């Protein structure tokens, strides 16, 4: 019997109007060995955003992951991989001042 790798794609935001710094809801990821964020701008915005994974041992208190933030224009798709994240994972999206991003989808892709 071929064992396939467990996986989950979770849509954490599907219509976010990004006006201030935003943290996704806590997500339990203990079973996964690797993850990748997809931040899709469904309507073209203006300005730029940075993405930073945060991790937690309890889902209540959060600390930045060691990886450097990923930054880019608020258009198309921004993506960021993350590994060695322990038990809980969330994404903090920080828009630069004056950024417009009215319809943002945030997806977490997890694999064993």
């Amino acid at each position: 019997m071929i064992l396939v790798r467990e996986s989950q794609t979770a849509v954490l935001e599907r219509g976010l109007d990004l006006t201030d710094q935003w943290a996704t809801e806590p997500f339990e990821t203990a079973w996964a060995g690797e993850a990748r964020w997809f931040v899709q701008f469904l309507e073209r915005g203006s300005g730029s955003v940075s993405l930073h994974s945060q991790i937690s041992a309890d889902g209540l208190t959060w600390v930045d992951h060691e990886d450097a933030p990923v930054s880019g224009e608020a258009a198309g798709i921004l993506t960021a991989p993350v590994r060695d994240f322990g038990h809980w994972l969330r994404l903090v999206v920080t828009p630069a001042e004056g950024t417009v991003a009215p319809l943002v989808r945030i997806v977490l892709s997890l694999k064993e």
Partner: protein
Amino acid sequence: MTTPAHPDDTAASLREAIRSSDPHLSKFRPLPRILAHDDFNTGLHGWVELGGNYNGKGEYGSLDRHFRDFRPPQLSTCNFFDVGTHGAMSGTYALKLATRPHPGHTATGIRRLTMSGRGLLQIEAYLAYKAEAVVDPSAENGFGDMEWDGNRHPSEAQFGAFTVATDLCGDDGVRYHTVVRYQNADEDGNMLRQWRYPIVPEPTPREAYEGKVDYPYATDFTAPDPEDWRVYGQPQELCMNEVPTKVNWHYLRWVIDTDKRKNVEVQLNDQLMDWSDVPVPIYEDRYGSLENLLNFYFSVRTLSGQRNFLYLDSVLISADW
């Protein structure tokens, strides 16, 4: 060797013997045909966020506002600040439905099947419910009816409700829901501990498309008007176990009859409830694209605004057809 007088009895006895010797199945009482046995140590098993209907362009704006944000289920180890990984009833993982910290918000997990017959249909589950723990020196030490006294904890009053329900359709588009809700507390933290059911069918995206309904974010999608809910029987106290980081698993069993389109009975631990007189409202309009639809969903709704969680250790769906 002699031929049994009643071969069906022998088959039932053999089935019972095999089931009772299986540690995974012996905690259930399935009807003869097991349609699904979901142990979340091996993945999501098709339990997925209830998604709203969208238009042919896939546009976010075409989703009903109260159907846009039912949250993805999580494979959870029941992990908490005070003990770390609690673990599930069987193995490490449970399925967790988690609301946002927003009053009225609902999280759902739905499983989509179809019916290959009519008759008795049963869902069983081992479940636990919690409000999110608080670690904050400035937090209140009481909420509603629950003031911390070493036994009672405000967290218990911060949990709103969990629901198990169906979406069923067949016989030329006759669609209906059966719904069981445990209403633990109201938005002010008054403890209710009531079993409830709605007397209207759930508003559908087609009704919204036709302009008949339009509900805001965090509406109670199952039946938006509180006046459309009825209380069944007397309150039942469950085992929340004092604090939000102790998980005790409860046995739920619910039988419906898809031939008669009726409820049959509900069991939660040692309380067996005759639900045969609980009405099952049917949509007046007929629905296409749903022939033999068989969906079960669980949902959890916070009223306090504290994140509410419903954990499912394992689920078994069985039928007598």
